[in-house]
C-alpha cells in the first residue's frame, strides 16, 4: 500500500488561537501526520497580539498585554516553545522563557491611601507555589467549594486587616461602636472537637441573631472555612444563613467605621464583594448546578452582586471598575453601558485571585510579537509548518446542500483568498528583522522582498487595514486538492465578512454574530525624557487601572527601553489603553476615510488627556498653567537628540505611537450577559472538515483573553487529531 499521505491542514489567521492549534498539530509526536500551512494577511503574525518595531526600533503594540499567573495553557505552550527553540544566550538576550516573562511587580487600582500612595489590594492574594505552566498536582483545585473556602479565607484576612487598621488608627468612633456591643457577645472560640462541633457552633451563632464584635466575626468566618473544607459534612443550606448573618453583622459593625479611611474603605468594599459573591454562589445553588458559573451568565456582574447584597458603594469601587476596564466590558464601547456576564466575571476573578502561580500578573520584556510570536514562528518553521503571508481570507465557501450525499454533513468546499503581494523570485517571505540579536517583527513589511514593493511603499499600502482592499491576485484553495481540514482562527469581527455562507444557512452562526458583540480599542505610547520620579511618580513601576476614562489603564513600561535602540535613551516609557466607542452611525464605517478619522480622534483624545488628566498621576509632568510639558516627549527621528524643543508644541505628539484598533478582526470580544450561549465550540462537528478557534468560541473561559484563545486552539487541534486529550487542557473542565 502507498504510504499514508500527510493530512493537509489550512490554518487561517496568525493569532494566539491559530498558533496554538498549529503548535499542537505539528508536534513531533505526530510524526508529520499533519501538514500545516498558516495563511496570514499582511506581513506579521500575532493578530491582536501583533507588535512591530518602528523608528529607533521602538516597540509598537496594539495595546497593553499582560499575562496572568492563571494562564496555565498559554504559559505551558510558550515554555515548551522556548525549550524546543534552544536559543543561544550569547547571541540573543531573550533565550529562555524567563527572560521573556517576569512577574509584574505592582498592580494598582486607582484609589489612593492615606499617605497618597496607590494601594495594592492584590497583595492580599498571595499567588500559588510554582510557576504557571508547571504540571498541576493531583488535588483538584477547581471546585466551587474550594473557591468558597479560599474566599472565606481571604475574607478572614481582610477582616483581620480591618481590625488591625482600626486599632492602628485608634479612632474614637471605633471604640464607641465596640462599646455598643450587645451583652450577648460571642465568646472567644473553643477548640473544635469532633465533626459535630462546627455544626453546633454555627447553630448557636445563628440562634444569637447577630455577631457583635469583629473578633467574633472573624471566628464566624473561620467556621465557614471549615464548613467548606473538602470532607465537611455540614449541609449547604445552613451555611447560606450563616453567611447572611455574617454579612449583616459585618455591615452593621464596619460600614460606619471605614467611611473616612480610603484604605479601610477599599478593604471593606472587598469584604462586601466577597460576601456578596459567596452569598450568590450559595443562593443560586451554583455548587450543585451542572452548569457551574455558567448558570448566572444571563446576569450582569454588578446586577448579580447587587442582588446578593453588595452595596452601591462597593459596586462603584475601583475593584469593580477595574474588573470592567481590564476586559473593556462596555457595550459598543460606551462607558455608560458597562456589561459583563456574571458567570464569566466570577469565574475569571476567582481564577485570577486563587489559581495564579508565581504572580498574579506577568509582564513581557519586549513586544508581545517578539516574546511570543517570533519564537513560535521559528519553532513552527523548524517543524516544517508552511507560512503564506500576504494572504487575506475573503470567503469560506460551503458545499452546496444539493451536492451532499445521504447522511453527509455540510463541509467547507473552498477557501478564497486575496493575495496582497507576491515575493520576488517566488521565494518565501522572511518576516523577521534583527534587533540586537533578537528576532523581531517590523512595523512595516520588508518591501524589498516584494514584487512591486517600491510601488507599495510609495502608495502606502496598508496590508492590515480592512479598508485597503488592493490586491495582486486571488487564490482559491479547494478541498481534497489543497486542504483536508480548516482551522478558522480569524477574529470574530471578521466572521460576518468571510462566513456569509454559514450565516445565511445556519441559524446558530447567525445568532452568534448577532449576539456576540465586540468593541474597538485605542492605545497610545509615549517616550519621555524624564524618569517617573522626576515626573512626580515616586513609587515603583506599575500598571494601573480604573483611572479616568478614557485611557483608564496606564502601564509603566520603562523596562523596555533597553530593548530599543535609541541614540539617547528615554528615561521612561508609558503605555495607555482603553476601549473606543463605536461611531454613532454605522454607515460611517464603510467610508474609506473611516480608519484615518478614528486615528485622528485617538490622537486628539490622547492630547486632551495629557493636558487635562495626567497631572493626577504625574504632577511634575505639567507646567505652570497645568498643561502637559510637550517637550518631555522624545522623537526617535530628531536630528539633534538631547536639544529641547520649545514647549507647547502639540506636533511633538506626532512622533509618538498611537492606534485606533478598528479593523474588524482587531475588535475585542465581549462577554455580555446572555451572550455566552451563542458561542460555538471548536469541538462542534457540524462542518466536519472545519474547526473554529479563537477567544470568541466556547472554550471554557468564554472571555476575551490570551488564555481563552490558546485553549480554543488546543481544542481545535483536539477536534482534528484527538490530541491533546481534553483532560490535559488545564481548567477546560472547571465550574
Amino acid at each position: 500500500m502507498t504510504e499514508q499521505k500527510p493530512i493537509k491542514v489550512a490554518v487561517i489567521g496568525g493569532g494566539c488561537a491559530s498558533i496554538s492549534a498549529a503548535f499542537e498539530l505539528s508536534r513531533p509526536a505526530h510524526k508529520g501526520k499533519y501538514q500545516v500551512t498558516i495563511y496570514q494577511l499582511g506581513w506579521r503574525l500575532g493578530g491582536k497580539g501583533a507588535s512591530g518595531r518602528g523608528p529607533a526600533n521602538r516597540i509598537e503594540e496594539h495595546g497593553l498585554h499582560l499575562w496572568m499567573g492563571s494562564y496555565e495553557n498559554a504559559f505551558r505552550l510558550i515554555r515548551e516553545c522556548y525549550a524546543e527553540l534552544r536559543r543561544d544566550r550569547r547571541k540573543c538576550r531573550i533565550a529562555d522563557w524567563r527572560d521573556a516573562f517576569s512577574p509584574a511587580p505592582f498592580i494598582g487600582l486607582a484609589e489612593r491611601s492615606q499617605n497618597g500612595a496607590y494601594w495594592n489590594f492584590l497583595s492580599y492574594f498571595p499567588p500559588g507555589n510554582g510557576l504557571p505552566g508547571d504540571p498541576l498536582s493531583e488535588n483538584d483545585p477547581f471546585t466551587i467549594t474550594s473557591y468558597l473556602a479560599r474566599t472565606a479565607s481571604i475574607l478572614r484576612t481582610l477582616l483581620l486587616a480591618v481590625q488591625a487598621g482600626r486599632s492602628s488608627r485608634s479612632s474614637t468612633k471605633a471604640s464607641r461602636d465596640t462599646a455598643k456591643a450587645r451583652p450577648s457577645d460571642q465568646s472567644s472560640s473553643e477548640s473544635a472537637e469532633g465533626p459535630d462541633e462546627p455544626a453546633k457552633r454555627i447553630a448557636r451563632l445563628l440562634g444569637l441573631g447577630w455577631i457583635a464584635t469583629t473578633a467574633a466575626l472573624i471566628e464566624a468566618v473561620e467556621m465557614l472555612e471549615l464548613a467548606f473544607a473538602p470532607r465537611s459534612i455540614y449541609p449547604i443550606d445552613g451555611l447560606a444563613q450563616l453567611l447572611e448573618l455574617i454579612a449583616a453583622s459585618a455591615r452593621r459593625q464596619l460600614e460606619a467605621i471605614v467611611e473616612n479611611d480610603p484604605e479601610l474603605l477599599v478593604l471593606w468594599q472587598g469584604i462586601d464583594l466577597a460576601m456578596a459573591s459567596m452569598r450568590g454562589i450559595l443562593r443560586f445553588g451554583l455548587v450543585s448546578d451542572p452548569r457551574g458559573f455558567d448558570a448566572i451568565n444571563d446576569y450582569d456582574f454588578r446586577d448579580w452582586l447587587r442582588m446578593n447584597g453588595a452595596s452601591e458603594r462597593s459596586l462603584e469601587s475601583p475593584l469593580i471598575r477595574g474588573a470592567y476596564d481590564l476586559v473593556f466590558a462596555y457595550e459598543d464601547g460606551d462607558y455608560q453601558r458597562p456589561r459583563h456576564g456574571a458567570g464569566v466575571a466570577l469565574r475569571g476573578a476567582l481564577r485570577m485571585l486563587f489559581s495564579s502561580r508565581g504572580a498574579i500578573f506577568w509582564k513581557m520584556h519586549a513586544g508581545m510579537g517578539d516574546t511570543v510570536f517570533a519564537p513560535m514562528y521559528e519553532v513552527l518553521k523548524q517543524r516544517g509548518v508552511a507560512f503564506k503571508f500576504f494572504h487575506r481570507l475573503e470567503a469560506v465557501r460551503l458545499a452546496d446542500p444539493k451536492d451532499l450525499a445521504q447522511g453527509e454533513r455540510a463541509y467547507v468546499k473552498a477557501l478564497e483568498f486575496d493575495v496582497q503581494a507576491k515575493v520576488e523570485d517566488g521565494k518565501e517571505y522572511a518576516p523577521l528583522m534583527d534587533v540586537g540579536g533578537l528576532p523581531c517583527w517590523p512595523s512595516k513589511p520588508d518591501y524589498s522582498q516584494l514584487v512591486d514593493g517600491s510601488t507599495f511603499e510609495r502608495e502606502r499600502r496598508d496590508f492590515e487595514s480592512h479598508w485597503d482592499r488592493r490586491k495582486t491576485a486571488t487564490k482559491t484553495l479547494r478541498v481534497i486538492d489543497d486542504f483536508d481540514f480548516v482551522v478558522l482562527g480569524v477574529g470574530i469581527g471578521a466572521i460576518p465578512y468571510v462566513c456569509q455562507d454559514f450565516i445565511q444557512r445556519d441559524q446558530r452562526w447567525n445568532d452568534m454574530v448577532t449576539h456576540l458583540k465586540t468593541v474597538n480599542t485605542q492605545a497610545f505610547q509615549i517616550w519621555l525624557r524624564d524618569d517617573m520620579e522626576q515626573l512626580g511618580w515616586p513609587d515603583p513601576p506599575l500598571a494601573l487601572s480604573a483611572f479616568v476614562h478614557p485611557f483608564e489603564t496606564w502601564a509603566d513600561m520603562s523596562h523596555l527601553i533597553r530593548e530599543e535602540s535609541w541614540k539617547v535613551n528615554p528615561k521612561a516609557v508609558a503605555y495607555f489603553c482603553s476601549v473606543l466607542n463605536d461611531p454613532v452611525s454605522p454607515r460611517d464605517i464603510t467610508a474609506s476615510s473611516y480608519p484615518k478619522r478614528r486615528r485622528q480622534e485617538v490622537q486628539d483624545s490622547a492630547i486632551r488627556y495629557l493636558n487635562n488628566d495626567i497631572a493626577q498621576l504625574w504632577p511634575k509632568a505639567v507646567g505652570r498653567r497645568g498643561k502637559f510639558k510637550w517637550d518631555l516627549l522624545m522623537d526617535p527621528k530628531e536630528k539633534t537628540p538631547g536639544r529641547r524643543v520649545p514647549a507647547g508644541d502639540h506636533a511633538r505628539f506626532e512622533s509618538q505611537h498611537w492606534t485606533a484598533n478598528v479593523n474588524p478582526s482587531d475588535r475585542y470580544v465581549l462577554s455580555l450577559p446572555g451572550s455566552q450561549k451563542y458561542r460555538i465550540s471548536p469541538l462542534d462537528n457540524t462542518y466536519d472538515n472545519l474547526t473554529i478557534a479563537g477567544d470568541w468560541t466556547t472554550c471554557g473561559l468564554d472571555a476575551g483573553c490570551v488564555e481563552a484563545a490558546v485553549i480554543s486552539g488546543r481544542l481545535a487541534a483536539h477536534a482534528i487529531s484527538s490530541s491533546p486529550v481534553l483532560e490535559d487542557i488545564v481548567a477546560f473542565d472547571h465550574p
Partner: protein
Amino acid sequence: MGDRKRLHRDDPARIAPVRNFSKLYSRSSSVNGAHATKAAQPDAPRRTTGGGPLAEGVELAYNVIEKYIAEGRQTAEGFSNQPYATRAPNDNLQVLVERVLRFQAEMLPLWIETLATLVKVDPAQNGHAPSSDLWPRSNGAPKAETMAVTIEVVSLRPVQVSVELRPNSEPQSLVALGLSAVDSEKPILKDISLVPDEIAGRIKLRLRIPESQPPGTYSGVIVNRENGETRGTLSVRIAD
C-alpha cells in the same frame, strides 16, 4: 492511487466542559427549604397593648399559629421529598401536578390530557448536557435510609438499574408506574413488578426489557397502591 477521498473529522467524545464538581450535597430536605436545618428561633415577643379582647385575641392567635407551624414541620418531614432532592426536575413536575389534581373535587378527563401535554418538558430548555447525564446517583442520600432491594433483570442488552426506596415501605403494596423516557416516541417500560422477597424485609424488583425497546434512560415512581403515596423512584438505562 486514485482519487483522494474527502476526510471527515471524528465526532469528539464530548463537546462541553464538565462543570459540575459538587462534592457537597445536602442530606437534609434541601429542596424544601431551610427550615429543617435552621436552629429553632426563640419565641417572638408579643405585643400586648392594654388588656381585654385585643390582647387575648392576639395571644390566642399566636397560640394557633405556633401550634400550626409545629405540626406543619412534622408533616413536612413525614411528607419528605427525599427522593425528589436528587432527581431531575422533569419527573417532579409530572408527579407533583398529578398529586395536586388528586386534591381537586372534580377532574375532567379531557383537561388532564391537556395538562399532560403542558407538563411535557422540552429537554432543550434544560441546559443539561444531553444524555451524558446518568440518572442521578444517590448523591449522598444516606444509604442506610433506603430499603434493601433484590433486582432481577431479563434483558438481552446491558442494562443499568437504579432504585431508591424509602424505608418501611410495605412490600405487599408496591407498584411501579410505567417508566418513560424524555423522548415521548419511545414506548413506556411496563413489565415491572415489585414483590416481597424471600428474605424478610427485602423487596424484589423484577424487570423484563423487550428486545425492541429503544436504548435510553427510562424513569418513573414507585407508589403504594393502597394510598397512592410515592415511596421511591426507579430508573433503567438501556445501552445501545
